[in-house]
């Protein structure tokens, strides 16, 4: 099995072997971050451009660290401080980055499909760091990596995703990835935040959090974006916490062993109780650590595949 795609745009298009290759490669990369000298020369001489049209600290920093631990040079472009303010289109920005002889663009954009569009126009590699409500593949990959590390497998696991399913690219990528690897996924949210036809993605739908949690091996708690989409569905944050918030009582009721994940940033007391976020079931900070290894694997694989593409010509 070898990786042939020049881009990573989403998990929907990947088969099981491709996802497993990324996870296995990430496992090898994890060791690098535990060294005294946290660096290998695999991407020496390559340039990675982080092109972020939406605010993000965690994902951008994680990609930046991943690239630097592979010895790549990293340039960060934030839309607020670039020519985007002067009206430059995404494609123009992309072709300019290519003309600057960068090798990989990591893009975060509020429009679904932005990464796909850019990847079609460019010869260099494009990695999707989150596009609108579409996909956030590296987040789902690090979630799966963490699950596999904790429970030894993905196949047959029962994973509950709770929160704003309708507007969540993290949920979509997780659903594609987990179901492809043989996990059983239940999504749980207020009715307004469950998109119609979600069952066609191969998931069960629950509207009662205690029911959804019972028997689950893990729960992935999504961030409720009350500043954006969630306000209409749930006017009051406290009501959401009472009905869907992950609390110690709910964890206990579900058997007590459930693994609690969250992609961050946390809204303590809205979707998750503070004592759960900091408690023994939480793997939230391990997810952050694993994100580096997963992103190193992705950058390495797409870069390799693109080099091969040109040497084959």
């Amino acid at each position, binding site marked *: 099995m*070898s990786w042939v795609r020049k881009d990573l745009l989403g998990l929907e298009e990947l088969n099981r072997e491709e996802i497993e*290759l990324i996870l296995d490669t990430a496992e*090898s*990369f994890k060791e690098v971050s535990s060294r*005294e000298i946290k*660096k290998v020369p*695999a991407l020496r001489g390559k340039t990675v451009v982080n092109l972020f049209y939406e605010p993000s600290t965690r994902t951008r920093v994680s990609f930046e660290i991943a690239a630097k631990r592979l010895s790549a040079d990293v340039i960060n472009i934030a839309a607020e401080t670039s020519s985007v303010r002067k009206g430059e289109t995404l494609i123009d920005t992309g072709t300019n980055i290519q003309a600057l002889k960068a090798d990989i663009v990591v893009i975060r954009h509020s429009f679904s499909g932005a990464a796909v569009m850019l990847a079609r126009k460019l010869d260099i590699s494009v990695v999707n760091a989150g596009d609108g409500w579409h996909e956030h593949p590296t987040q789902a990959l690090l979630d799966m990596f963490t699950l596999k590390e904790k429970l030894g497998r993905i196949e047959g696991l029962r994973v509950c995703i709770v929160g704003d399913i309708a507007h969540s690219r993290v949920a979509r990528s997780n659903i594609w990835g987990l179901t492809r690897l043989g996990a059983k996924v239940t999504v749980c949210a207020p009715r307004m935040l469950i998109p119609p036809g979600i069952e066609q993605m191969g998931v069960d739908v629950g509207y009662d959090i205690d029911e959804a949690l019972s028997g689950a091996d893990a729960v992935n708690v999504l961030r409720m974006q009350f500043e954006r989409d969630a306000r209409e569905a749930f006017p009051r944050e406290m009501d959401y916490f009472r009905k869907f918030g992950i609390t110690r009582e709910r964890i206990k009721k579900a058997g007590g062993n459930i693994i609690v994940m969250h992609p961050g940033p946390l809204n303590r007391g809205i979707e998750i109780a503070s004592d759960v976020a900091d408690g023994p079931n939480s793997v939230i900070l391990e997810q952050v650590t694993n994100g580096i290894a997963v992103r190193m694997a992705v950058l390495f694989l797409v870069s*390799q595949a693109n080099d091969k593409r040109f040497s084959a010509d």
Partner: protein
Amino acid sequence: MKEKARILDQEAVQRCVIRISHEILEKNKGVEGVCVVGIRTRGAHLAKRIADCINAIEGSSVELGVLDITLYRDDLTSIAQQPVVHKTEIGFDITGRNVVLVDDVLYTGRTVRCALDALVDLGRPRTIQLAVLVDRGHREVPIRADYVGKNVPTSQGETVEVRLAESDGKDEVVLNERSG
């Protein structure tokens, strides 16, 4: 690919491992500070055998590690098959140690050069010594082995294939000729 000659059989491989183990002990005056690190895949198998052999002789427990050099290769972009990255597993500090680096075949020397880069990223050994089962010549970089199982004069048109029970079912080393 046509088999031209059988260079080592199972017993000969075993004898090489035993002799190299004794030579390591002789040169280092015992096991003090010695650790053994094999280069994936077959170098790692050989390293395990050498470590076991040293331990049997000395009643010691020398530390054993595995090095994956994929990320350090200088030909990453030109090799046809994309290599799979495996884990480097060296669970001890190599600083100040006498590291015996083990590989199956010494040819151009480029693999060993990569391994040296990988090792010094992990610490600063007192010495790095090189043990190989077969030295077939044709070096492209100035590298030599400290311990050699067998020197085999070859031509560039030939390949040396090492098979080990752990990965290939049986122990043998054969010389092949590229057909055509």
